Structures are given as structure tokens and as C-alpha cells.
């Protein structure tokens, strides 16, 4: 049986072409444009060398702060989603009443449009009339009632909090599937040897979950670096750029007609993610055979 006749390469043609033109091509020509002074205000293009990149990485520009914010968002949300996801996954893996109800409810936020979640929380987190502050005042915790999305000091953490609310259930669900795949005999052997709950977790669950946790971390990091919707809906980068990340900054530059700046930031991201992407793909495709 000749493989190249039975499995003709043109079966992949449509997918590869559409994907290539609309995903890869913009990334590549975007790198080209980041060496020019492309903008909405002039029809002429001039080669400017590394000027745009120098601007992005010079300490006195705001761009560096947007990159830092993006990384901070990625790290904090990844840590919390993984930690809480693991905690809930363990709580909902052993016998508990209403197990499926809890699992279903916790997963729910991750199927809703992210934008809608963001819009809803602008009201819940409203400092004067918002539900959260009303609730805190009602139970006597007035001191905790803060200006969640308005106070520059805490706005970014509020945004991350909403995103953790939204994304933890998804991570939990993956970890539950991972825990369910661990053969029961390990736990039986563990309890015969007298291992307590913590020891069973530390020496059986955790090592056996390594691959699943690695995959969830990759997914969280990918989401975090590309985050846009939730921030656009909650704060749109404010107050005073405190919650500005790369994609919200790119959107603003685009609206202002600063195409060269926008494409430069995007290209920095593109190159960075293609490089780390190879490692991430390796983790995602490890032991290709899917159960």
C-alpha cells in the first residue's frame, strides 16, 4: 500500500492554507512592518531599522510596563488557578454528596463568554452600589469593602481575581480527569502501608498528576499571555494604565493609528511565543496516544 497515494497530502490543503494566510502570514509580515514607520497618517512607508524595538525596550517607555503587567497577570493567575484547581479537584474526587452538582457548577464559568463575565463583574465590584461591597458591609466587614476596579493599587488584583473565578473550574476539571486516571491499586497499597491522607497526596497523587499539571500550566500561561477580553470589559487598561497588558495596548495603538508600534509589540510577543511554543507543544504532545 503506497502511503502517498492512499493518503494524499492535498487532504490537508484547505486547512493549511486558511490557517497559513490568516494566522501565520500576519505574524511574519508583522515582523517586517515593525522595521518601518507604518501609521494611519501617511501613505509612505520608510525603513527605520530597530527604532521601534529600541523604543519598546527603552526603560522610560510605557511599553515595558505593559509587558511586565502581562507577565505578572500570567504568573499570578496560573499559580492561583492551578493551586485552587488542585484543591477543588481533590475535594471533589473522593466521596462527597452532590459531587456532580459541584463539578458541574464550578465548570460553568468557563463556558460563558469571557466578555459577559467581565461586564457582569463591573457591576458586582462597583464601589458604592456593587453587590460585593454591600455584602461585606452587611456582614460587618466594612474595612474590606474596597474600590475594587477604581483604586490603582488594587485594580489589577481585582481583575486577576475575576479571571481566577472564571478559569479555576476548567483547570479543576482537567485535574479531576487526571486523578481519575490514577490506578486505584496505588491507593490501596498506600493505605495497607499506613499512609495518611497527606502522604497519599504527596507520594501518589502528585507524582502521578505531573503530566496533567504540566498541561494545565501550559494552557494557563498561553491564556495569560494573550489575555484581552476580561481586561477590556473590566477596566480597559485603566486606571492610568495600571491594568494595561500587551493586547489591550495593541488595541489602543491600533485605534490611534499607531500601526508600527502596535505591530512591534505584537512581533515581540510572536517571536517570544514561537520560541517557548516549541517547548509547550512538546509538553502538550508528550506520549501522543490519547486514552
Amino acid at each position, binding site marked *: *500500500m503506497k*502511503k502517498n497515494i*492512499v*493518503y*494524499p*497530502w492535498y*487532504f*490537508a490543503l*484547505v*486547512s*493549511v492554507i*486558511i*490557517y497559513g*494566510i*490568516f*494566522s501565520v*502570514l*500576519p505574524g511574519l*509580515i508583522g515582523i517586517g512592518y515593525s522595521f518601518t514607520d507604518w501609521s494611519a497618517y501617511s501613505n509612505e512607508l520608510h525603513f527605520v531599522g530597530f527604532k521601534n524595538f529600541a523604543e519598546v525596550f527603552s526603560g522610560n517607555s510605557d511599553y515595558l510596563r505593559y509587558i511586565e503587567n502581562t507577565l505578572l497577570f500570567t504568573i499570578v493567575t496560573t499559580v492561583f488557578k492551578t493551586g485552587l484547581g488542585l484543591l*477543588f479537584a481533590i475535594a471533589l474526587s473522593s466521596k*462527597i454528596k*452532590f459531587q456532580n452538582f459541584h463539578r458541574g*457548577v*464550578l465548570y*460553568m464559568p468557563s*463556558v*460563558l*463568554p*469571557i466578555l*459577559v463575565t467581565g*461586564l*457582569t463583574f463591573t*457591576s*458586582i465590584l462597583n464601589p458604592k*452600589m*456593587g453587590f460585593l461591597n454591600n455584602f461585606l458591609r452587611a456582614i460587618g466587614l466594612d474595612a474590606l469593602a474596597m474600590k475594587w476596579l477604581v483604586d490603582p493599587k488594587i485594580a489589577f488584583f481585582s481583575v486577576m481575581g475575576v479571571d481566577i*473565578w472564571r478559569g479555576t*473550574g476548567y483547570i479543576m*476539571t*482537567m485535574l479531576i*480527569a*487526571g486523578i481519575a486516571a490514577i*490506578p486505584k491499586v496505588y491507593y490501596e497499597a498506600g493505605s495497607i502501608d499506613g499512609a495518611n491522607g497527606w502522604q497519599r497526596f504527596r507520594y501518589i497523587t502528585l507524582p502521578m498528576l505531573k*503530566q*496533567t499539571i504540566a498541561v494545565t500550566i501550559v494552557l494557563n500561561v498561553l491564556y495569560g499571555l494573550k489575555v*484581552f*477580553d476580561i481586561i477590556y470589559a473590566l477596566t480597559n487598561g485603566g486606571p492610568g494604565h495600571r491594568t494595561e497588558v500587551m493586547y489591550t495596548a495593541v488595541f489602543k*495603538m*491600533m485605534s490611534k493609528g499607531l500601526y508600527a508600534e502596535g*505591530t512591534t509589540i505584537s512581533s515581540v510577543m*510572536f517571536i517570544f511565543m*514561537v520560541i517557548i*511554543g*516549541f517547548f509547550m*507543544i512538546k509538553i*502538550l504532545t*508528550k506520549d*501522543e*496516544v*490519547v486514552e
Partner: protein
Amino acid sequence: MSKRSAYLTQAVLQNILAWVASLMVIVPMVLIIINSFKADGETMAISAQLPKLWHPENFATVIEKGKLVRSFLNSLLYAGVSTVVTVLFGSMAAYIFSRRRSGFVSFLYMFVILGMVIPVNYVALTKVMQLTGLNNTSLGIILLYVAMQTPFTVFLIFGFVSKVPVELDEAAVLDGCSPLRLYFSIVMPLLKPALITASVLCFLNTWNEFTMPLYFLNTSEKWPMTLAIYNFFGQYEMSWNLICADVLLTCAPVIIMYLLCQRYIVGGQTAGAVKG
């Protein structure tokens, strides 16, 4: 005895944790439902008070003022067509990639699934959209969604193709089956569970997507539900009764889909993460 009490403490803590977490998810959702029935002026913000009078007509108001019928049909068109195209051609590609794992073809597979990590350069994409004449067109949005969803779809189906025995292909070829017929009448039917999972995920993702229309659709007649609700939010910032009604109507299709296809959604998103 002490072992038993330790076990009991653990069970209590476990239940408290589960209920606190679930309530944190349920409360905002209940609040949205309650507030969507309130009168104008009763809702400067979402609150826990029950409506004085229930106003189900809010939904009719929102459908009319927010032009939801049109945006619902737009969302349906974008998500529906892009899902069919992505899954049909994506599964053909995954099948070839999985069967021929050598040389150029395996390079193509890597090239495609690299799309799961690379970020979109929206600024340069604008240039591509203008050059191809697809800016501000429904076809353009559909193609963008196909491009966006293809990498994960190919990745997901790739894993399932290897479970379809190659012996089937060999037997079919001996009987004189053409490559197209081999795929469509023998392999594809066996991939049905994977195709359903991929379709459900694809549909949900494109239904919820917001950024592409934000960049590439200027005329409100073409807006999907996500962009329509964002615009509605800007116009009626103080009428949270109407916004909540709009939120419910925008989320209803995905929630219904979630309840009906939970098995496929959870199965598909966890496949690939769990290798026993």
C-alpha cells in the same frame, strides 16, 4: 475513635469547601436572573433584593432595543459555518497527518499545531484583510475563525485517528476504494465521537469570541451577540435590568449547549491532558 473523628473532620471541611466554591459561582448567576426581572430605575447596580414587581417584558425590550434577533442570527452563521468548515477540513488534515508520520507531512503537522501557541498580530492581520478584500465581511470573520480553531481541532482529532485500525484502510484499498471514499465512508464514521467533541468546542469558542469582530466588523448589522451586548452595555449603562436580560439571552445558547453536551465538552478539553 480518633481516626474516625479525623475522617469526619475531613469530610466536613471537604463539604464546606465545595459549598463555598459552588456558592461563589451560583450567587452571581442567581443575581443576574433576579435583576433581569426588575423595573427601570430599580437597578443602578446588580443587587440581591428581589424585584418589587416581576417584569418579564424586559426580555422583549432587550430583544428589540439590542437588535438581538439579528445578532443572534449573525452569531449562528459565524459559529455554525466556521465549525463545519474547521471540523470537516481539519479532520481530513488530522487523518493525513496521523497516517503519514514522516518528512514533509510531519513538518506540516507541527506547523499547524504551533498555531495553538502563536499569538495573532491583529495590526498586520488588518493589512491581510484589506488586501484580500475581506475586511468588514461575514466571510472574512468566518475564515478568521476557521484559521483560529484549526490548530486545536487538528490536534484533538489527530489523537483519535490513530485508534482507527490501519487494517481497515488496507482492506478497503484492496477492494479498490479511492482515497476520498476511504476517508468519507470508512474512516470518518468511526471518528464520530471525536468530530462531535471538536464541533461542540469549536462552536462554543466561536460563539463566545469577541476580539475578531471588534477589530474587523465595523457595521452593526454584522455584529455577533458578544459585540452587540458590549455596545448595549455602553448605551444603557445604568439599566442593569436590561443588561442582565441581555446577559441571560447571550449566555442561554452556550448554557443549553453545555447542559446537553457536557460529556463531549469536558471529554474534549481534558483529552490530551490526561495520559494514564
